[in-house]
């Protein structure tokens, strides 16, 4: 599965390359508008991660050109520019999804997976890790076969952990997940409270592990 990352910031593109490679995606990096045109004229990609602000051009222009040329490759638009960010504008221009920088890695990967339609094929609605069973469709949770009632936030958090086992999720990633797009620095420690409640409800103190005070993880 080949992905094209169009990003002029070297550090970001390097970091993305590393992340995506880790997830077994074959990734090309284009450092600007012209470079992207070159890559696109020579290869075909399953997904394009397109930064809005390119050194030698505008990501939105490139997006429009591709769509005008009837290239229907899914495009995930990335932008650090909140002032001109307009989700509607981006989606109207033909983007399939949109993510504002800085984004959480987990969120980015989840979006990529969704766009590549891997979620439904490769993952069943039910995830079972240890004695904990989670159904994404029915929203049912069982711990040791016993049904557990969770709040929306708690369910979302547990689902995120179970979809990403063995990965340490930092407090930032978790709060980004439950307060999508909301400026939440004032309440980032609310995550700790939710985890505490979740452990109590699951009646399992060891399922979600504390990682040195900055994050949490579950082990498969």
């Amino acid at each position, binding site marked *: 599965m080949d992905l094209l990352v169009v990003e002029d910031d070297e550090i970001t593109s390097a970091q993305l390359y590393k992340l995506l490679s880790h997830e077994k995606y074959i990734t090309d990096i284009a450092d600007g508008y012209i470079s992207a045109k070159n890559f696109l004229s020579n290869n075909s990609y399953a997904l394009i991660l397109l930064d809005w602000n390119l050194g030698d051009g505008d990501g939105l222009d490139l997006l429009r050109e591709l769509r005008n040329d009837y290239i229907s490759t899914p495009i995930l638009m990335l932008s650090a520019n909140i*002032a001109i960010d307009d989700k509607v504008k981006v989606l109207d221009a033909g983007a399939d999804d949109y993510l504002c920088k800085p984004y959480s890695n987990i969120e980015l990967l989840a979006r990529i997976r969704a766009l590549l339609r891997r979620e439904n094929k490769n993952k069943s609605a039910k995830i079972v890790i240890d004695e904990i069973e989670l159904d994404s469709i029915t929203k049912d949770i069982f711990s040791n076969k016993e049904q557990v009632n969770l709040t929306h936030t708690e369910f979302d958090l547990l689902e995120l952990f179970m979809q990403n086992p063995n990965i340490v999720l*930092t407090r*930032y990633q978790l709060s980004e997940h439950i307060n999508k797009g909301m*400026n939440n620095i004032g309440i980032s420690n609310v995550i700790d409270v939710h985890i505490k409640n979740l452990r109590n409800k699951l009646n399992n103190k060891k399922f979600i592990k504390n990682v040195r*005070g900055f*994050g949490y993880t579950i082990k498969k």
Partner: protein
Amino acid sequence: MRKTLKRRLLLILLSIGLLPYLIFLIYILFLSENKILKKTVNEQFLQINSTTNLIQTHLKSIEKEVKFLSTIDILNDLLAEDLDRRILKLIEKKAVDLGTQLTFYVIDTGYNIVASSDKENISKLFKNATSLKNDDGNFVDDEYIYYYSKIFSSFDKDKILGFMILKYSLRNLKQYLISNATAYSYLQNKQSFLALTDRKMFNINFSKNNGSKFEDEYLIVYNNLPEPLNNWYLVYAVDKNVALAFLHDFIYLILFLFPFLIFGIIYASFKYSKQVVVPIVELNDAINHIVKTQDYSQVLKIDARYEIGRLGFSFNEMIGLTSSVLKELENENRLRLERFIRLVEIFNYIIQAENEETCVSMTIEKISTFTNKEVLFSDNESIENENSIQLYVSDFEHRKKVFFGSLVLEHGRLKDASEKDFYYSIATMLTLQIDRIRLIKKTVSESNAKSSFISGMSHELRTPLNAILGSTQYLLSYNDLSEDNQDMIANIETSAHYLLGMVNNILDIAMIEAGKFKIEKEDIELLGLLEDLYLMIKPLADEKGLEFIFKYSDSMKAKIFNDKKTIQQIIINLLSNAIKFTKVGTIEINVTKSNKKIKISIKDTGIGISANELEHLFQDFSQLNSSLSDISKGSGLGLSLSSKMAKEIGITLKLVSDGLGSGSEAILVLQEV
């Protein structure tokens, strides 16, 4: 006015016409009769005097006749007592000559009648012998005058033979009297009242020699007769009607003419009053009509002469003048209106110009289309004369006016003030539009500069943060780092996370201040939103052991139409602040509603705010009573940002506190839909 004037005029004319006539009539009827009668009396006096004289003369001649007869020689025969027949014949003849009723007597000294014209008396004694004086003379007895004269002897002149006597009846004087249908005269004795007339006699008091008297039908004039008729009066009676006949005829004539005269006067009065009033009424009607219709082109047809005709003529002249002045004004107004419309058209046209060059060319184009006159634009500052208009535009940088160019009118000088105004207005519009274009350009570029600054800031700050957070997450998520490294990278992530929050707040403030804050209003069920936020925040309060209460009336509905994200942000800010600054006690959200105003109160039992601090509360970076060392306390931008956001979306945010240690209360007021 019309009736009054006409009536008055009529009245005046009538009185002028009738009054003299009536005075004349009264004069004739009541005064002239006496005058006429008096005049008649005077006339009768003349008549009566003349008649009296005639009678006197007549009587004198008779007396002379008697004297003459007494001297006739043949009377000597008297002595012979045989009076000659010739004497008899003589006196008989004389008697016939002198009148009808007279008798001659010749008596002797013994008063015996010797001869008489009446033979019967002969030889009788003369009755009135005692009245005979020893001289010639006369006497009156009854209605007779007796004239007597001594008869002397022809031989002896001293010897009296007898008397020649004439008995003369006054009736013989009839010839001097008149008697006809309208007047008659008669003789009357004042003592015996004997009147020698067949007709009516009047009872007159004859105390004077002559006089007059008005009887019912007659005018009486009387005069005393001369000697010897001292007791007799000649009386004239004139029929009054005859005297006044002419007068009466005249009165009848006048009375007969009266209706014609009245008619004539009335007719003339009507005619002349009409001649005066009708043109005035017409004039008035015409003026009213003109006032009503505002049609000053009318010409008045005044059918009148003299002053009224001249008035009409003057009025027409005045109206004509007014009409022409009005027309002139109208033309001027039309011209002005035309120019005004053109100005508006030019304004509407050049306001579309987006840059200075097209603005100038559009103006020149419009001027030449409208006026058929060539106008040039010159940027040569030295051109300054009567047919050029210099244009000065604003230099916004230096706040002054600078020369832009001149409009040069090819056709020369401007004719009048109005035309001048026209061109100067165009010039003003042109400069204003150029100012506007420049100002828009400046504003747009300033606005663009702000936008690109914020956008650049956002990009520049977020891109490295993204790199940092992406890397730290990668390292923390996937790599088995040593515990020390893990701690360090976790610190980096926490700091970057905090920094991101700061950046977000600062960018929000920058956007609000640049007027670029985006508001997306939608229908919001406020209680549901608050419930979600309450549940989201509650764990934090629980963690600190604070009581967290959400109070609202069950029956309450609170629908609002506003920006959901911003409201959420504000409420999270306020709630997290309340939790942050409260160590023990309660945090209470209380929603109330009155008059479509929804009040959200967030009350805590925290450290409170001093009066001094309340003043600076909403200033940027003014976190209260704390240092930046404790990053968990936030950036100090929260309240300032919340306040600004609240203002942006049109809701009220107020913070109250009774001072340090007394807790604080944040109050939000929103408008219900």
